[in-house]
């Protein structure tokens, strides 16, 4: 188990849980739900934002949110 922002780029992982009470609804709608696959594609300079593949969507999300997504490499 590790946080998304510490995940090795290019490795597929599975979302396990969130360590904040309310994950922004927007991310949930994008498919950020426990059980779904997630991959860190690349970090922008200064490690923020993060370019991820979430379910079928390609997104850039801030590191601030990524920190709260707990994942496990598949």
């Amino acid at each position, binding site marked *: 188990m590790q946080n998304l922002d510490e995940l090795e780029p290019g490795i597929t992982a599975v979302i396990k849980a969130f360590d904040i*009470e*309310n*994950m*922004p*609804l*927007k*991310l*949930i*709608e*994008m*498919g950020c*739900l426990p059980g779904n696959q997630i991959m860190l*594609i*690349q970090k*922008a*300079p*200064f490690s*923020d*934002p993060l*370019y991820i593949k979430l*379910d*079928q*969507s*390609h*997104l*850039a*999300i*801030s590191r*601030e*949110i990524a920190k709260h997504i707990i994942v496990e490499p598949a």
Partner: protein
Amino acid sequence: MGLSINVALIGNPNTGKTSVFNLLTGLKQKVGNYPGITVEKKEGDFRLDRTTKAHIIDLPGTYSLNASSMDESVVIELLLNKNDRDYPDVAVVVTDIENLKRNLLLFTQIKDLEIPSILVINMSDQMQRKGIQLDTAALEEALGTKVVLMSCRENKGVEELKKALINYRKLSTKPILDVASIDPPYFESLKTTFPNQSLFKLWLVITQDVNFANLDRQRVADTSNFRTQSNTNLKRLQQTETIKRYQIINDILKKTYTIDRTRGTDLRAKLDRVLIHKVWGYVVFFLVLLTIFQVIYDWSSVPMDFIDESFARLSEFVKSNLPPGMFTKLIAEGVIPGLGGILIFIPQIAFLFLFISILEETGYMSRVVFLMDRSLRRYGLSGKSVIPLISGTACAIPAVMATRNIENWKERLITILVTPFITCSARLPVYLILISLVIPNARIFGMNYQGLTLMGLYLLGVVMALISAMILKRFIKSNYKSYFVVEMPNYKWPLLKNVTLTVFEKTKSFVIEAGKIIFAISILLWVMASFGPGENFDQAETIVAQQYIDKQIAAEDLQYEIDAFRLENSYIGILGKVIEPAIAPLGYDWKIGIALIASFAAREVFVGTLATIYSVGSTEEETIKSRMASEQWADGRKVFNFASGISLMLFYAFAMQCMSTLAIVRKETNSWRWPLIQLFGMTGIAYISSLIAFQLLQ
């Protein structure tokens, strides 16, 4: 007379929703604003068959009916207000074949509003290449809708969509999700309180912080036991709703949609490797900016000079062919230059939007946001603010229009407000003449003082823009929390139709909407400069001729003296004298005051106005410069010295003295509030800094 139906076009961003809109309406579209807010409203008309017309609204892109921005609230407000003139008879939900799962989330919500809905699956030309198979009939059955496969690139599906629209009454309006299943006890109590309302609509009214029709709002507030859930609980229930919807969608797609993951090209990965590389990404972006810069500076100058000359020639033609008199003067000196002053912006606007729409269409713009976001976010700007800020060095007008592409309202507004600080090309002639007048042409460490000053002025503009952005970030309140989540769309070839329509639409809306304000002010300025009260103005010729009666003076020079005398006694001249006490502490006399007021038409007018007021006939810069250099106050001090020169440069750097910018900000923010804040705020900053500079330096 035929029947007309209202169609709402809804969909996630990047699904090609606007391509569908363009395909349906072509040039029969209108772009405006929703009343009171800065959200763009696109609508159009097209014919369904011989007797039926359709009025279509292209609603802002949204991922769900849970609004997280002003653009998204527009969608819900319309869909929940049956009394709205634009309330749809039928909704067309546009989805992208590759992101069908996520796109269907929105579709199920729309369907649950009990609005007849058609599901358009766009980019169907990609199916084969991506190894996607879809059982359309089963999907229609499961969702209770009509599915239309479209490809805007290949012009496919339009007729089928039109046919589906004609038959919209046959569409089922049966909800997909049983909302009550989200939290049975809570929804049961809702049902008892409002027995005649749709539960899903009630649910949206409760969870969405948007302006609903007064009636519903009022009733919600009146019922004390209604909001029995805490906000945290509501949020959790919204999550439950989303999860439940995804369960339904997953079940449906499992039976209808297959994708061969080994197919599909890795174009995205290949391009991303370069375009968002921590070094090459910035190099490419720099080159892109350089190209845009070159084009709006360099290529635009050819058509701009042409427009300039044509209007000057037209003026001359009118003057020499119409009988002399007030009317001819109005046409030749007021109306024609006024129109020319609007049309002159067209080349820059058109070129800039050509680039911007290509950058957006290809998907590159999202990569720019990815690269730039962190550096700009701390100033309250968006990654996309780079384009307006850089374009601002050519002209603030197209730059302010370019902010339309920034989704977040607060970031968009801040970008609009600070862009005019960036040194635009109209300031350049003013800077150049002042620098050569008051800054020594000497070198320090091999660098020329004059060059350094010019560079300093450019830097000053950028620094001022960033500082103000940081300050504005604290003061502008936004109702929406902005989490940074941006979709990184697939790379695509731009659609020619979309690009040309954007360029056309932007240019047209500038000419029509900002143009009328610019035209009105330029006529006003012309009247103020061409008329004056009393004897002095009317009898200028006789009075000046009297003064020079004993002196030898060429007829030409006499005419210059008359023109100068006239301007001095015109309304603008009088105004210049009136404001002299206010600007004297900055080191300016009333003549500079006149030039400041006239600069409102366009900053570069400064030099020309001084030439007239000093009765210099020539427009040669050297002549004007030497005349300025010799200008003295009554006590023999020079008017243009180091202190007043610096003070003037600071004034031009900071003051909002461009009516065209004000007009476009009025248009883009849809209110006079923000342009007025700019006018007084920026001019206030200019006044104070010039005052301090002059008082310290003199």
